[in-house]
């Protein structure tokens, strides 16, 4: 397997990974998550069998770290019920919104929708790559993005 130097991955995709984390876990935790994601990636890298889509691979690792961080934070207040029945304004702990209230609202979405929306909009992945990062089918990736956005629209409606 001919893998490019890891620095090349960082140069090409580090920015997208970091932005994804700033949006999904907040600027305060993004740096730590970024380091965790890169360390995990470095550990796994030499054994990687498929180097076709390293951007999606890195973001897959990053989104796991984002989920860990989100869950750790959610453990602080009462556990939040699984999302479908949750309405607008449900809380999952204090998250500093980095000057962009929209991220705070996306963070309130159910996990799959949340990650799908962030990967699609912030990391700018194709639906096929969102699917790779989330280990689901491209259809499910598309559905999660659309349902997430639909919910955000509904919550915004006056």
């Amino acid at each position, binding site marked *: 397997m*001919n*893998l*490019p*130097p*890891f*620095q*090349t991955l*960082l140069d090409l995709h*580090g*920015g997208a990974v*970091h*932005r994804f984390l*700033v*949006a999904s876990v907040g600027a305060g935790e993004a*740096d730590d998550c*970024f*380091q965790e994601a*890169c*360390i995990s990636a*470095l*550990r796994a*890298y*030499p054994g990687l069998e498929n180097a076709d889509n390293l951007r999606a691979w890195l973001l897959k690792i990053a989104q796991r770290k984002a989920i860990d961080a989100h869950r750790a934070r959610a453990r602080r207040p009462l556990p939040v019920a699984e999302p479908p029945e949750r309405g607008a304004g449900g809380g999952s702990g204090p998250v500093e919104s980095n*000057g*962009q209230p*929209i*991220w705070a609202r996306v963070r309130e979405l159910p996990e799959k929708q949340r990650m799908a*929306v962030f990967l699609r*909009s*912030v990391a700018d992945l194709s639906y096929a790559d969102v699917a790779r990062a989330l280990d689901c089918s491209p259809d499910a990736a598309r559905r999660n993005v659309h349902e997430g*956005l639909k919910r*955000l*629209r509904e919550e*915004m409606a006056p």
Partner: protein
Amino acid sequence: MNGIDRELTEAVSGLTQGGPSAEVLRALNTRAAKEGLLDVAYAQVDSPLGPLTVVATERGLVRLAYPERPLDQVLTDIAEEISPRVLEAPERLDPIRRELDEYFEGRLRRFNEPVDWSLTRGFFRRVLEATARIAYGEVRTYGEVAASAGSPRAVRAAGNGLGSNPLPVVVPCHRVVRTGGGLGGYTGGIERKEFLLALERR
């Protein structure tokens, strides 16, 4: 455009400048090194011969490349031959950078940083090891180096071995010249060989 889409687009464009800070990347290098995950560190180092690419493993200096060799190519080769865990980590190369500075100022006559010979093998490695023993300011002929590598008649092969030197300057292949006083060749260009020999004659 729907409100939410517009808000998302605007928020995303607000992020596009962002990326990990230099501090975050430095902390990553430190942690990677501590956990044994920084197999290969590299940096670009200024020198009178142009910016040099300097590459080290945990064992020592493994590659030094002149600017004509594209960085991508140097790193891709190393990723393949040594490990793909390659990171730009200038702070890890500070000791060799200091030695190179002193050498080019004429203040250092012998490099002390350890060398990792991983990129060399067989007879070529013996030729380069023999070359590493030539003292500052001295020269040897290709024949002498071949002999000192154990094969007095393999003069041409010795020349090829020197041409493949992954560590020019530090492994001083510029100190090997033709019998009769000709300079012979040099991977980095004959002007550089002249420059280095003149530097060492000062």
